[in-house]
């Protein structure tokens, strides 16, 4: 019994934190721009394969490659905002289809230039080996990743609650017209949001890349997790996203360690979300505000 509890507690913390990192960006886009970013899946392969491209094609070391990839991500997000989101905000059917196509294009580009046999591997391991907490054994990489996730979320919360820009973004998420009236530069803040939400996703992907599988189609699986967390938490609410991440982490840990059926991990989260949506269609927290 003690072993079960230890494993469930440790893995709820670890998985929940990583899911939080992967889903925070999606939730914030939903909250601020009030769109359903179905192209979110492109960020994951672009992080891994973008970094790899700088390393293999230009021979850059890891850190400059990561910085180069972040610059590419920023440029792509601006193009997506200016070319798609801004133009087709009113016709969401076109927008969602276009965003899905963007994710597919990036996946296919990664697959064309670096197919699975190219052996893409990023040396982003921060710590080798494992930690043991009682009977629970966890890779050090994931523990460090969890701590980074919490720190990052804390920084985002601080930014949105305490800084002037953060408050302006919150105002924007509540009412665009009122925000314009009080002099908030909507366009700039939208673009700024599109760029800052990339950071947790990029960091999360780089941390999990040495531990979890890397392949061109990886984004879809991560996007589904991000959707589940964001929906469960109430689209765009950071508090809800934090609770939902740990709830899904808890569901996964229970299924793995109590029922001993890791096969049911994804299904358990999907069913949990569907049940909660039927009972409480707005999600766990109010989606009208970011915090």
């Amino acid at each position: 019994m003690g072993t079960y509890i230890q494993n469930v507690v440790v893995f709820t913390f670890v998985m929940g934190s990583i899911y939080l990192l992967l889903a925070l960006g999606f939730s914030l886009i939903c909250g601020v721009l009030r769109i359903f970013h179905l192209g979110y899946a492109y960020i994951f392969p672009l992080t891994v394969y973008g970094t790899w491209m700088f390393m293999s094609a230009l021979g850059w070391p890891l850190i400059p490659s990561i910085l180069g990839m972040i610059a590419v991500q920023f440029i792509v997000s601006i193009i997506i905002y200016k070319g798609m989101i801004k133009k087709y905000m009113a016709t969401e059917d076109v927008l969602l289809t276009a965003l899905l196509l963007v994710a597919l294009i990036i996946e296919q580009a990664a697959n064309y230039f670096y197919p699975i046999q190219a052996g893409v591997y990023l040396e982003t391991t921060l710590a080798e080996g494992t930690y043991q907490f009682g009977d629970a054994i966890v890779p050090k990489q994931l523990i460090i990743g969890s701590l980074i996730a919490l720190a990052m979320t804390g920084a985002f919360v601080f930014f949105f609650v305490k800084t002037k820009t953060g408050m302006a973004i919150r105002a924007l998420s509540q009412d665009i017209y009122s925000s314009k009236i009080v002099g908030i530069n909507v366009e700039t803040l939208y673009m700024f949001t599109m760029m800052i939400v990339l950071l947790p996703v990029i960091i999360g992907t780089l941390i999990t890349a040495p531990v979890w599988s890397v392949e061109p189609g990886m984004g879809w699986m991560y996007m589904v997790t991000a959707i589940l967390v964001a929906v469960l938490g109430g689209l765009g609410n950071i508090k809800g996203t934090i609770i939902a991440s740990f709830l899904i982490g808890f569901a996964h840990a229970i299924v793995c360690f109590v029922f001993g059926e890791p096969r049911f991990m994804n299904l358990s989260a999907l069913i949990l979300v569907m049940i909660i949506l039927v009972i409480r269609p707005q999600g766990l927290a109010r989606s009208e505000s970011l915090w």
Partner: protein
Amino acid sequence: MVEMELKRDRIVIRLGTKKWEWILEPRYWRNTLLWAAFLMIAPAVAYFYSPGLINTMISANIYAAIAMPLALMTIGTGRMNFGPQFYIGVGGYTAALLSIAYGWGPLTTLPFAILMSMVAALIFSPLVIMARGLYYVLLTLLLPLVFLEVTFIYTDIFKGDTGLFGIVPLLDTGNAKNNFLLIGYFSTAIMFAYLWFINKILKSRYGLLMASINDDEDVAHSIGININKIKIIAFVAASTLIGIIGWFYAHYFSSFAGITYLPLTFMLKVLLVLMIGGRAQVFGCVVGGYFVAFLEMLMIRFMGPIQPLLFPIILLILLFILPEGLFGLYRKRRYREYLPTIHVRR
């Protein structure tokens, strides 16, 4: 007592309070008839010159036959379903499992595939009333993914990783080329049957009610339309029609794998047929089905390994430059009264 009345452009048949109209005026059916004749002759021509094209035509017909019920559902429920492939999975797995377990042929499995699709649609039909806003999109998006997970978990039943094999084929004349030709005609017949049926519904009184729901649900409700009834009928009917395509796939390929039809990538293809064809216009779905299937085939043939990358880029460009889809180019010349609107955020 049946009464017949000849008018300038139509024959009106009355039986009690019921009324049917048969359009005589050539300008109303000439183009449709010409295109129908072309699509009926094309497989026969391909049979002699390039039999491989029949396969592309079958794909085109089936894409269109999935997109048309989706268009009906979009209009009738007033919102966009992002997981129509769930019903392909239901119909396909029902047919496949029954065929493998009992050795049943397509005619025997068809009623069960229809029944199971209908039951599944009825179970999930309250979603069109309960789920609002982006949550409907999310729930419909998640449904096929849940089913896909189930196929991997219960792999001893669904064979989620490899797919089910050994399903009784749709037709077997002993000659593969002849089989292709007959299945080609059968797929065309399915496509035309769907086109006729859905077009009839949309032009009927129910179609008008659906259009009013599509335009404004609250207004439709306020003028006394039972919107819940119409939405559920549209949802269940369209889902069942999509389920039949699952049955077709299972018997056509003699195998069925959820991983082919249930992921987001297959849904994206259906969505593109719907959008590039003509933004939920029924005739546009046929145009979209043929365009997407033939473009894909041509690119595979001439572009080589870069095709998977160029194909979505071309479709993305078309999505932006054709505001009413390919059918909109025709519609501009021949104005139609009703243009459906696709609503995502309801």
